[in-house]
């Protein structure tokens, strides 16, 4: 995998959450932080600066919801998929989370947020996207063919084993008689074993 970390993350924050802004500003050694209040200003900022490593967006922003803003971005910039887009919500909501997943939003955080987690996550998403883009990693799926026994092998097995068994049968009868006479109990050894799916079968 290509490593693209060790650089400051150029991050655009869309929203008005002062605590979060403060938190981001505190970790300025890792983040090159930029903030805008709403989606219109965000679009303007993007047009001016063009380069951004990640966008963190409040779910509720004036004018447009975070999910709608993501849609706008996707229709405006064809390659916006390569920039991690993270949604921040005030409280956890399973439906909204599912909606965010469906729209291809990269992550969904609920407050309070640990900045270190978000920074590591952005780094990882960036690496993942770059490497996926260059097709360095592909989700692998190996297909295993069904195992088949050849016709000649099968007939040889049956013939040889069958004839040997026939030849040996009289001697085996002698052995059975000997076991019967010498000791009490069954001639065969057997015990119960557990097989696939916990089915119990008798093992000889």
């Amino acid at each position, binding site marked *: 995998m290509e490593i693209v970390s060790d650089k400051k993350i150029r991050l655009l924050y869309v929203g008005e959450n002062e605590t979060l802004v403060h938190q981001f500003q505190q970790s300025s050694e890792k983040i090159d932080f930029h903030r805008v209040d709403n989606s219109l200003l965000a679009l303007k900022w993007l047009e001016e600066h063009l380069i951004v490593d990640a966008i963190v967006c409040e779910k509720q922003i004036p004018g447009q919801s975070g999910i709608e803003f993501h849609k706008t971005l996707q229709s405006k910039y064809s390659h916006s998929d390569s920039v991690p887009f993270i949604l921040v919500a005030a409280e956890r909501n399973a439906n909204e989370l599912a909606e965010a*997943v469906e729209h291809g939003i990269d992550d*969904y955080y609920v407050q309070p947020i640990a900045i270190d987690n978000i920074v590591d996550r952005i780094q*990882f*998403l960036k690496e993942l996207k770059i490497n*996926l883009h260059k097709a360095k*990693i592909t989700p*692998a799926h190996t297909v295993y063919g069904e195992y088949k026994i050849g016709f000649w092998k099968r007939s040889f097995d049956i013939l040889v084993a069958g004839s040997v068994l026939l030849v040996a049968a009289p001697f085996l009868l002698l052995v059975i008689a000997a076991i019967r006479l010498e000791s009490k109990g069954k001639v065969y050894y057997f015990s119960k074993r557990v097989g696939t*799916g916990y089915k119990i079968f008798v093992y000889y």
Partner: protein
Amino acid sequence: MKILVVDDKQSLSELVSQFLGQSYAVTTMEDGMAALTWMQDGNIPDLIITDLEMPNMDGFELIKKIKESGYFSEIPIIVLSCRDSSADRIQCLKLGADDYLVKPFNPEELLIRVEKLLIRT
């Protein structure tokens, strides 16, 4: 309920998926990287069972990555490993794993632990 099994040994993931497949929808992935890529595509499982020693991305890293994300941090994780030192257990639990099972394990025990974690969530 969807369960993701991450293990590079096909025999084990097949055993687990056959056993848990009776009551859950099981998906298997062969390493941490493949698992995260699959999850990032929009597949969010209800529970993850992972090995520790794997190529590309090992179990520790996988747990860390899952726990630091917003999407996946709530998903319970069971570690299934042949390492039985308490240092490994402690590290896994510290990173955020919910349970730790040592191989070889009794499948019934795994099933019970899975059920317990799924009821809790």
